[in-house]
């Protein structure tokens, strides 16, 4: 666990075994953090993530998890 950074960035965990590539998370991310590649979701721009968790709430496959230590 990093303790040096002043502002903790959210972490996005993707379960590649469970993702079916429906792209719901990509469509409903308000900050365009995510993208589809090779049929599954990947993080495109983590810096833009505000940890709103709209991707996680709408992922039907429990495949994306946003971890924000501050929340």
């Amino acid at each position, binding site marked *: 666990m990093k303790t040096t950074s002043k502002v903790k960035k959210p972490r996005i965990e993707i379960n590649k*075994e*469970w993702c*079916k*590539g*429906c*792209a*719901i998370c990509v*469509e*409903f991310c308000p900050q365009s953090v995510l993208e589809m590649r090779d049929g599954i979701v990947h993080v495109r721009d983590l810096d833009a993530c505000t940890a709103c968790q709209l991707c996680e*709430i*709408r*992922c*039907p*496959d*429990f*495949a994306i*998890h946003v*971890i*924000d230590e501050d*929340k």
Partner: protein
Amino acid sequence: MFDYEQYLRKSKMPLIWCAGCGDGIVMKAMLRAIHKLQIAKDDICMVSGIGCSSRLPGYLDFNTLHTTHGRAITFATGIKMVKPELHVIVITGDGDATAIGGNHFIHAARRNIDLTVILFNNHIYGMTGGQVSPTTPFTKHASTAPYGNIENPFDISGLAAAAGASFVARATAYNAIQLEKLIQKAIEKKGFSVVEAMTPCPTTYGRRNREGTGVDMLLYQKDNSVPVAKANKMDAEELQGKIVTGVLVDREKAECRQEYQNLLDHFSKEGEVDS
């Protein structure tokens, strides 16, 4: 941070549902609602019938019961009568609950027994090959309606309300936050509670009706949902094709299991019944 995996039987994952199916979104909303209510896993009994949505309890670490087609509510009624301390939650679909199980559905509502029914309405029999269901909209296509559905659909929430349910609400998979809040209210309500969860089926319904992917179908829900307060000011023509969301019925009525308990208590005082 909410960890869904504490409720999952991870050995059963991944979910059987197709890419873009909304059932998993409803499932997660339900788990958040259960978590907010701080109900212990062993205090929940989740009962389902047959169909896509009815596969749901198999993935969850509650007391779970996967029953026969259309009969989830009857099994749940039995469980509630003998184990009234349990939160009995029924997971069912539009075909399961309103076609083969239609009679059970309306009579459980009439009895007003304390069950929470989460009814996944995807307008079709998904698992068995896209046959027309009682909620397939008029003119829409299904494998058994290749020229378009010639029948009128049920309004499930209206049916539950007319049959006597204490609590009836409708929400979409798109608006998962609203869905979570309504499921929470439904579990808290003592009496027969129905949450009609509108969920996209891109594989057997969307494809036949050219409604696109799961994403497209969620966007349709977004653009066509109307809160109940606004819908009350609209006429039937304006409401055509719209999804009215929110709490539709919330009323106090005598609850079946409590009335049974009152009888038991009354007669056990007189020494006529050992309870």
